[in-house]
């Protein structure tokens, strides 16, 4: 596995609260990596450090290095550019409610001045196909609003939006936690298909989900990375007692 994201000595704060401490991690390229841990352990903060969203909070601060490919994202590249390279999908689908499905997918690109209609059509179709949503919405692309879709469809539309800018990395912060089992299954199938093309990092509280979709899993606790190993190892025979206690439900 090649390294997709290299994290060195990463520390993060919210005000005086030291939320991430000395994280060292190599996230493999073109694979899915799951991050698990109890609420407040720092896993979502960590993900937000991978696309510089953490620093959008005025009291937040980050030190350390995050490299995606050859670029140090905190020194070599602007936050706007990094978010083009790193797509993000959130816990709850966040469609633009007044926009059509089509505009929901490519709206961000249009806002950035992208105007070629034929290319936009191609990007929307490709993104929706990659998000396994095309067949369900192709006849209503410009007729229906994004908000009219079901929750699962909205989340796949948001994934299509993230894919539209052709990122290298896709961050997913509990992408299926608000969805029913069938929609969850579709998102998981999608992650499985996409991971050969993108470096995927998924935060999840659903450990079966982590076990199903990810090759690597990291366990966070109290702002530290306790254990990072193959998903198989983490869920069958973890090295650290704290990991075992967490995944067997003995705390957290």
């Amino acid at each position: 596995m090649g390294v997709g994201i290299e994290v060195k000595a990463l520390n993060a704060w919210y005000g005086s609260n030291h939320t991430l401490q000395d994280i060292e991690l190599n996230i493999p390229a073109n694979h899915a990596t799951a991050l698990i841990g109890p609420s407040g352990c720092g896993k979502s903060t960590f993900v937000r450090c991978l696309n510089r969203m953490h620093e959008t909070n005025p009291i937040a601060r980050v030190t350390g290095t995050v490299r995606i490919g050859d670029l140090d994202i905190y020194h070599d590249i602007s936050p706007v550019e990094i978010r083009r390279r790193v797509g993000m999908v959130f816990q709850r689908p966040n469609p633009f409610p007044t926009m059509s499905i089509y505009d929901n997918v490519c709206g961000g690109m249009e806002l950035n001045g992208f105007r070629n209609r034929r290319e936009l059509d191609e990007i929307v179709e490709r993104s929706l196909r990659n998000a396994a949503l095309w067949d369900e919405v192709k006849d209503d692309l410009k007729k229906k609003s994004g908000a009219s879709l079901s929750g699962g469809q909205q989340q796949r539309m948001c994934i299509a939006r993230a894919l539209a800018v052709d990122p290298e990395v896709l961050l997913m912060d509990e992408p299926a936690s608000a969805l029913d089992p069938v929609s969850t299954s579709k998102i998981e199938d999608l992650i499985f298909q996409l991971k050969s093309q993108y470096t995927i990092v998924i935060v999840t509280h659903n450990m079966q989900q982590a076990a199903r979709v990810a090759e690597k899993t990291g366990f966070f606790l109290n702002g530290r990375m306790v254990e990072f190993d193959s998903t198989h190892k983490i869920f069958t025979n973890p090295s650290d007692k704290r990991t075992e206690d967490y995944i067997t439900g003995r705390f957290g």
Partner: protein
Amino acid sequence: MTRIRFQQSLDDLKEKLLVMAGLAEQQIQRAVESYRVRDLSICDLVDRSELAVNRMEREIDQAALDLLAMEQPMAIDLRFILAVIKINSDVERVGDAAKSISDRVRMMDTMESGDLPVDIPRMASLASNMVRRSLQAFIEADADLARTVLSMDDAVDGMNRSAHAALASLMASESHRAPQALTALMVCRSLERVADHATNIAEDVIFWVQGADVRHQGNLESQM
């Protein structure tokens, strides 16, 4: 400590398996005793326990299946439940071996008696000791104790081979005693299987406690 109910269910599962294992262990002792003293009333006791062991095997499998489906266990809990399912099957087969011995004792009742050149009680004692020790390792989650069982299996295998040679020789030289010798041979074979099941149980204990798969390692080494 969270998941108190789940932990209680795991404890119950272990308890049930140990009750069943106790019955199977008693079956083997009784079967060997029935062989030693040629008492068919003891064979009846073995048969009766067999029904209880079979019923408990189904109950334990169902309880384990429920826990897998409802609790989605991970890591050591997952390994424990998998080990219980496999040990359950081995314990039931120990019961089957006891039943097989008691069936042979019934057959021998119609045959002429006489000493045979095999020490079946000694072999039975060793095989039973292996079962007891593997179950003790299960009770105490003691992988080191389980490993001592693995090294005992060779002794039982050796006794089985010696018995086979001695009984084959007897059958060749005294053909009228062949039915009796053949029956003793089957009893030895059953005891050798009991030792194999004890070995399997010990391997499952090691898997549960340490997450290590130690099965077939002798075979692997001999192939390399």
